[in-house]
C-alpha cells in the first residue's frame, strides 16, 4: 500500500493538481467562514429571541423555537437539496457555492442556537434581577452580565459544532460545489487511486478541524477565567 503511494505521489502532487486542491480548500473555507460566521450570529439571535427575560411577546419566542426545532432535525444533505430546489422554484440563478453556504448557515444557526440557549439558561435568574436593579436594559444585561458568565457553558459545544460544520461542507459536493470532497472525486475519476486522492483530503480535513479546535481553545482562554474551565 505504501509502495503504491510513493510511486504515485510525484504524479499526483504536481503544480496544477495542487492549485486545484487549493481552490477546493478555499471553497470549503468560504462555506465554513460565511456559513458558520453568520451562523454564530444568527444562533445567538435565535437564542435571545427565545429568552423570556428579553422577549415579552410570546409568538415571537414560539417562532424562534419552531425555526430551531425544525432546522436542526433536517439532515444536511436534505437541507442542501431543499435550498437548492427552493432557488429553482424562485427562478433565481445563484452559484452552487452560495447554496452550500446558505445550507450550512441554516444548519449551524439552529444548532448553535441550542448551545447559546443552554449557556443563557445556565446563568442564575438572580443575575438578571440584579442587572435590572442596576438599571441595565435587557441587551446591556445580556452583553455585560449574562454572556460573560455563560461562555464556559457555550464555548466547548460551540467548538465541537464548528468542527461538525467543517465536516458537513463535504456534503456540498453533491450539489457540485468544487470543495475538497468534490476535488477528490474528480482526481479519483482522472485515474489517481482512491487511496491518495481521498487520503490527501482526509489529512486536509483533519488539519482544518484541528485548527478550529485550537481556535476554540484560544477563545476559551480569552473568555473564560481559569477556575471555570473544564
Amino acid at each position, binding site marked *: 500500500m505504501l509502495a503504491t503511494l510513493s510511486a504515485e505521489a510525484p504524479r499526483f502532487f504536481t503544480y496544477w493538481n495542487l492549485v486545484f486542491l487549493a481552490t477546493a480548500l478555499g471553497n470549503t473555507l468560504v462555506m465554513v467562514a460565511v456559513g458558520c460566521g453568520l451562523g454564530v450570529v444568527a444562533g445567538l439571535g435565535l437564542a435571545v429571541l427565545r429568552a423570556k427575560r428579553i422577549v415579552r411577546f410570546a409568538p415571537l419566542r414560539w417562532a424562534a423555537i419552531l425555526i430551531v426545532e425544525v432546522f436542526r432535525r433536517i439532515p444536511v444533505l436534505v437541507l442542501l437539496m431543499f435550498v437548492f430546489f427552493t432557488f429553482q*422554484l424562485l427562478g433565481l440563478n445563484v452559484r452552487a457555492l452560495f447554496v452550500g453556504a446558505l445550507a450550512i448557515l441554516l444548519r449551524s444557526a439552529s444548532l448553535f442556537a441550542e448551545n447559546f440557549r443552554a449557556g443563557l439558561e445556565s446563568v442564575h435568574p438572580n443575575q438578571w434581577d440584579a442587572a435590572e436593579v442596576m438599571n441595565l436594559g435587557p441587551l446591556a444585561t445580556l452583553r455585560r452580565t449574562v454572556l460573560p458568565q455563560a461562555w464556559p457553558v457555550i464555548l466547548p459545544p460551540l467548538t465541537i459544532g464548528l468542527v461538525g460544520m467543517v465536516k458537513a461542507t*463535504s456534503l456540498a459536493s453533491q450539489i457540485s460545489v468544487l470543495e475538497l470532497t468534490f476535488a477528490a472525486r474528480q482526481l479519483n475519476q482522472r485515474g489517481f487511486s482512491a487511496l491518495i486522492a481521498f487520503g490527501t483530503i482526509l489529512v486536509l480535513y483533519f488539519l482544518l*478541524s484541528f485548527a478550529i479546535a485550537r481556535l476554540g481553545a484560544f477563545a476559551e482562554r480569552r473568555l473564560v477565567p481559569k477556575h471555570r474551565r473544564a
Partner: protein
Amino acid sequence: MGYTFQWGQATGYIPYLAGGALVALQLAFFGFAIGMVIGAACAAVKVYGPRAARRAVDGYISFFTNTPLLVQIFFLFYALPDAGIFLDSYEAVLAGISLNASAYLAEIQRAGFISVRRSELDAAETLGFSRLQTIRHVVLPHLLKTLYAPLANHYIVMVLGTSIAAIFGVEELTGRALNINSITFRSFEIFTIAAAMYVVLTVAASASLYWFGLYAFRVRAKVF
C-alpha cells in the same frame, strides 16, 4: 415565480418514503450497536490500558471525529478494493457509520467509566459485595443513568447522519426521495416532504427514547 406546485404527485409516495425512514432507523440502529461494542473496547483501553495502546486509541478517535463521515465512507468504498476487500454499498455505509460512531461512543463511555467514584466502589467492598455484585448493583445502574442521555442523543444524530447513505445508493429516506425526484421531477415538493419526515421521525424517536429512559432507568433525559 412561474412555478406551479404539484403536491399531488409527491404525496402519493409518502408510504414509500416512510419505508425509507424505517431503513434509516435500522441503519442507525445497527451502526449504533456495532459502534457501542468497538467504542466500549476503546473506552476500556483508554481508561485501563497501557500508555502505547492509549495513544493508539487517541489517534483512532481523533481521526474519526475530525474527518467527514462522507469521506470516510468514500475511502472504504473506493480504496479498500485495492486491498482486496470488496464491500457493497450497504456494507460500506454501515461500516463507515459504525466506525465513525465508535469514536464518539468511546468518548461518551469513557466519561461514564471515570464518573464511577472510587468511594462508591469502596462502599460496595465494605458491604462485602463480590466483583459481579459490584458491577450488577453499583457500576451498571450508575453507568446506565449517566450514559443514557448522551447515548440517546447520539442515536438521534446518527439517524440524521444516515442520509449520507443515499449518496452510495442505499435506498433509505433520502435515497428514496432522490429516486422519486428522478421519476416525477417535483423536486421542491419531494424534498419538503422528506425534510418534514425527518423532523417527524426524530421528534418521535426523541419522545420514545425519553419515555423509555423514564420507565426503564428513571432518567429524565433531555434527548436532542
